[in-house]
């Protein structure tokens, strides 16, 4: 379903990959008033989309430029590469940032060891294990202060 609200210019967010992260991000964009298009090769994956999602779904390979163009990638303000493959996310991020000049590109990587080449192209990296570690450090520090952790 797609809803146009009168008198308001909507920004377009393209989410590549209906993973748990991808679908939640798509819901978040809907909530913030973006037009959202989410792409996945597996149409069943869209069943994970949350109730607050109000965008369009496209069944296809988001690393294929023709599929991205169907999703109006040229007009996108934000693109999130959230498939379950690091290589595919890296490719999608490079296409959207370097070929289509999308201003905000986010790339999910489970291994961010070689991400410096992407950050040079102004691509934002989201690495779950890094985030996990940061959160662990934070909680551990709190626990240390409280004296409950040896």
């Amino acid at each position, binding site marked *: 379903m797609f809803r146009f609200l009168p008198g308001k210019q909507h920004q377009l967010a393209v989410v590549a990959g209906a993973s748990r992260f991808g679908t939640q991000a798509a819901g978040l964009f809907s909530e913030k008033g973006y037009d959202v298009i989410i792409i996945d090769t597996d149409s069943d994956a869209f069943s994970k989309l949350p109730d607050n999602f109000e965008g369009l779904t496209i069944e296809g390979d988001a*690393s294929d*430029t023709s599929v991205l163009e169907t999703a109006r990638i040229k007009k996108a303000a934000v693109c999130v590469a959230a498939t379950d493959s690091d*290589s595919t996310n890296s*490719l999608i991020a*490079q296409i959207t940032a370097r070929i289509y000049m999308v201003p905000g590109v986010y790339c999910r990587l489970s291994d961010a060891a070689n991400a410096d080449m992407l950050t040079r192209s102004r691509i934002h990296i989201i690495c779950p294990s890094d985030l996990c570690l940061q959160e662990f450090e934070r909680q551990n520090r709190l626990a240390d202060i409280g004296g409950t952790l040896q």
Partner: protein
Amino acid sequence: MKIAITGGKAEADFLIASLKEHHKIAVVNPDTEYARYLADIHSIPVVCGDPRKVYVLEQAEIRRFDVLVSLMPDDADSLAVCQLAKEKFDVKKTIAVVTNPRNVELFRTFGVTEVVSSAYMVSQHLVQLSTLSSLVSSFSLENEKIVLTELDVSSGSRVSGLPVCSMHLPPHVIIACIIRNGNMIVPDGQTVVSAGDRLVVLSAAEMQNKLIALFMPETGSI
């Protein structure tokens, strides 16, 4: 040259076989069974692992290699391998074999030196074949060293209207006979070839492509 071959099955096997004599080869293959097979059959060390990982390429010692070929089944993986090799290992040239022809231009933009798409090549080959099959049939003699080629002269052909002596035939080529209206003519230098003729040409095998090129219709008239 120092050449790294990553991923792939039969293609990797073939490349290793044809290159190992004269080059230093490093092989990385993510498939355990196939890595073992390659190591056994070619008697070379094979690193079994994911070539997208720095520590795997480090183990393969590909630093400052001349060429890396990526034969990964997923195009995105091939790009990742090529970019890693170039960025972190100073590999001079990278070659990616891709399945999606749209990735040819794209991957070059992203720094891969050479991008090969089989679909693209097959389409080129088919275009050529469909043009040729209507014009040429051939027959090999003496272990394929000598070929007998039948060529139909079309009206657009470059040689149509020319005497044999002006056709600039390549060396080791002789027109054995011309079949015109069902009659056989043994030509000499002055015999003029015209559209509708069928030529039977005896040549060295390596000259066949040049010969066919000579008889092809001029560009634009196909």
